[in-house]
């Protein structure tokens, strides 16, 4: 028989004014298993806790119910107190007679009656409580950063500076990401390369950072502190260690038909290439789809000219399996495909370009060496039209419902860059709303209007008619109601940002969720913005939602510090309220494995003896380190083989019974 002690708290008058605590204690004393029932003004106070501890020792209590405030307030307090008295903390239950009773009811009789019922339920539950002992898990002191843009670079540098090893996985041949493509950054107009490339070099030189470029995550298993990741290092066909980066191979390569990804397709690149001159590592890669040697077997010029003997046509993809304690996802974003926006003639007329293409055109290291030229005829444009919100704030299937956040600022930047170099070019910006929250942002945009004379027109463009060598832009000024027609030479579309195409797939590998737009979901939109629902996995940058560079860097450092906090611990304590399988009942249907959000349930084959015969049986098995205790599996289990410690079927049924008493 259990020896239960019930302690009813007055909480000053908070409870006692509405609930007859003496009556509650008196009724509780009559309940089955209760050997002590008492009340006190403030159970959470030092004296109250001592009362509890002494009673446990003196009355040899093996279970405790505290009727007080919400368990969200003081469950931890009372459990600690019990533990100090030598009682397993999970043998303590709280009856919430303040938030759920005295504070919400007025009638004293009713409130008292309810408080008694709540205590009865807690007593019924605690009778079935069992000692629970949390497990401990070790932590692999190494972090993985997925994505080598500015977010990934910053995260890696911060974690590495804290003294932990970091591996960075980058899908493309070089780190740098979108920021490497950008010309100038708002609102200061400093050169993007000038601030990014030193960081790229720092990352490559840091003794604690390992770069895996041209690589992808193939598989992730394990759990917080103990992830096991399989990385697929794609065959580069160039031996990194041997290559001196002289570039002769690129110069001599005869294949020149592939559009350069880095230059947004404005120019072509070779089959062997480095994406851009400042690439890190500065080692070329052979694009096997484009390479003549790989397509026809003939050629191999690059190999002949390479004095370092770095070219290796036989190289194969290699797999690296590595353990990590923490993972930071920083895979960035893309621009949406504009094929569906036929009214803007993108793809139809070469002088209609995206904002990212514009970045390349205006970039001194870009295909036009920074001169603003029309792609159609390489002449300087006289009139340039910018159209914002192409696909942003768009409820139709063509676009995205959200605001892409960065376009207002970069469009103002683009307009200013033109005006600064070529004051004679007319610049018009069509916008729906100008949104410039951010330090010095609005001042920046106003400067474009007030000092540079950029013509801002509120309204979307209806259609861009290619007309001879001009682009006839039809719009409306929504404010004046005037219809507008501009003979433009260049039209720049601020295409909406979107999550990476493979975000959902990566999310599945990592067991982290994506929202309706495929951006990764943070654990809490306000209070846990860089964490995910999976412990040990953090988010940095635009993979979580559209972000500009300052925000991305801030979030990257935040994610890094979260990872550092985790890695700096010597061990992790588990929540012991986890699922447990009764193998004798489990029928091996494995439905529970389907719904576990943490992949904490796996199958295993057990052997047992039945009537002298060894029988093999398929059953589910819970990995207690992974289980977070949601209990969803228990409901899929028809025979009731899987149960949740601390919230078992019997415990909850006992509570139901007690409440219906």
């Amino acid at each position, binding site marked *: 028989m259990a020896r239960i002690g019930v302690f009813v708290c007055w909480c000053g008058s908070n409870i006692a004014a509405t609930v007859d605590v003496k009556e509650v204690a008196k009724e509780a004393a009559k309940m089955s298993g209760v050997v002590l029932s008492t009340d006190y003004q403030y159970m959470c106070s030092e004296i109250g806790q001592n009362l509890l501890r002494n009673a446990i020792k003196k009355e040899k209590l093996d279970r405790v119910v505290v009727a007080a405030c*919400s*368990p*969200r307030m003081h469950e931890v307090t009372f459990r600690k107190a019990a533990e100090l008295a030598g009682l397993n903390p999970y043998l303590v239950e709280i009856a*919430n007679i*303040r*938030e*759920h*009773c005295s*504070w*919400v*009811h*007025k*009638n004293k009789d*009713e*409130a008292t*009656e*309810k408080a008694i*019922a*709540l205590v009865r*339920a807690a007593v019924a539950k605690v009778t079935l409580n069992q000692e629970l002992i949390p497990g401990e898990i070790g932590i692999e002191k190494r972090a993985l950063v997925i994505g080598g843009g500015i977010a990934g670079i910053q995260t890696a540098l911060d974690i590495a500076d804290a003294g932990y090893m970091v591996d960075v996985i980058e899908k493309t041949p070089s780190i740098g990401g979108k920021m490497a493509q950008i010309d100038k950054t708002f609102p200061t107009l400093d050169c993007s390369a000038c601030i990014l490339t030193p960081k790229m070099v720092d990352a490559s030189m840091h003794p604690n950072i390992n770069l895996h470029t041209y690589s992808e995550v193939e598989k992730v298993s394990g759990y917080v502190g103990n992830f096991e990741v399989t990385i697929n290092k794609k065959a580069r066909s160039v031996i990194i260690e041997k290559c001196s980066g002289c570039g002769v191979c690129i110069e001599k390569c005869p294949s020149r038909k592939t559009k350069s990804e880095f230059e947004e397709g404005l120019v072509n690149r070779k089959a062997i290439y480095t994406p851009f001159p400042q690439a890190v590592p500065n080692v070329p890669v052979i694009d096997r789809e484009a390479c003549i040697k790989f397509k026809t077997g003939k050629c191999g010029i690059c190999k002949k000219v390479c004095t370092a003997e770095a070219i290796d046509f036989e190289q194969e993809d290699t797999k690296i399996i590595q353990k990590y304690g923490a993972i930071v996802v920083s895979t960035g974003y893309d621009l949406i495909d504009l094929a569906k926006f036929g009214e803007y003639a993108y793809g139809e007329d070469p002088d209609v370009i995206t904002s990212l293409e514009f970045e390349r055109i205006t970039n001194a290291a870009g295909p036009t060496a920074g001169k603003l030229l029309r792609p159609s005829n390489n002449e300087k444009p006289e009139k340039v039209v910018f159209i914002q919100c192409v696909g942003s704030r768009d409820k139709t299937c063509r676009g995205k419902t959200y605001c892409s956040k960065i376009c207002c600022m970069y469009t103002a930047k683009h307009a200013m860059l033109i005006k600064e170099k070529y004051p004679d070019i007319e610049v018009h910006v069509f916008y729906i709303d100008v949104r410039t929250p951010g330090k010095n942002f609005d001042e920046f945009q106003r400067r474009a209007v007030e000092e540079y004379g950029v013509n801002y027109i509120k309204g979307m463009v209806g259609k861009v008619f290619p007309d001879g060598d001009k682009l006839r832009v039809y719009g409306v000024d929504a404010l004046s109601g005037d219809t507008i027609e501009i003979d433009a030479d260049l039209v720049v579309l601020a295409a909406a940002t979107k999550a990476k195409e493979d975000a959902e797939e990566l999310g599945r590998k990592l067991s982290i*969720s994506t*929202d309706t737009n495929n951006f990764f*979901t943070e654990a809490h939109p306000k209070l846990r913005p860089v964490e995910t*629902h999976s412990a040990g996995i953090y988010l940095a940058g635009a993979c979580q939602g559209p972000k500009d560079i300052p925000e991305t860097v801030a979030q990257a450092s935040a994610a890094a510090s979260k990872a550092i906090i985790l890695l700096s611990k010597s061990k992790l304590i588990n929540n012991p*309220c986890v699922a447990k399988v009764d193998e004798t009942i489990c029928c091996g249907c494995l439905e529970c494995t389907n*719904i576990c*959000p943490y992949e904490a349930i796996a199958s295993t084959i057990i052997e047992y003896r039945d009537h002298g015969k060894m029988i093999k049986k398929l059953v589910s098995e819970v990995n207690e380190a992974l289980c*977070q*205790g*949601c*209990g*969803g599996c*228990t*409901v899929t289990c028809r025979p009731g083989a899987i149960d*949740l410690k601390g*919230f078992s*079927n019997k415990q*909850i*049924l006992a*509570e*139901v*019974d007690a*409440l*219906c*008493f």
Partner: protein
Amino acid sequence: MLLESKENLTIDKEEFKPLIVAFCCNWCSYAGADLAGTSRLNYPANIRIIKVPCSCRVNPNFVLRAFQNGADGVVIAGCHPGDCHYSTGNYFARRRLTLFTSLLNYIGIESERLKVDWISAAEANKFATVMNDVLEKVHKLGPNRKLRDVRWKR
């Protein structure tokens, strides 16, 4: 005799204090109920809350047991879809309970007696409103005799 029993019935109805058992998920709805307390919002005392880790922990068995043993109504409250502490728990709960509530209704249990709703930790007002609403509807329906175990005292 007949008249007498009729009288008894009306008195019964007046004194009828419905019992509502509410299963609240720890992270949203239970916290929402706490906030209702902190905000001193009123709702009737006949609502009794059981804490579960997640709405996906609520087994239909629990609901049936509550009705068997005397509950006049049952509430299941969880985080809003998309906000589940365990990412996906309430999505499964939503499917299960969509089918289960429909099934109970099909068996003849008035749909007002089993209420499922999503209540966030911030929605103290919603918590109180939902509870008041359920109580009012159940009160109108009168004591539940369906599924009741005759051996149970209440």
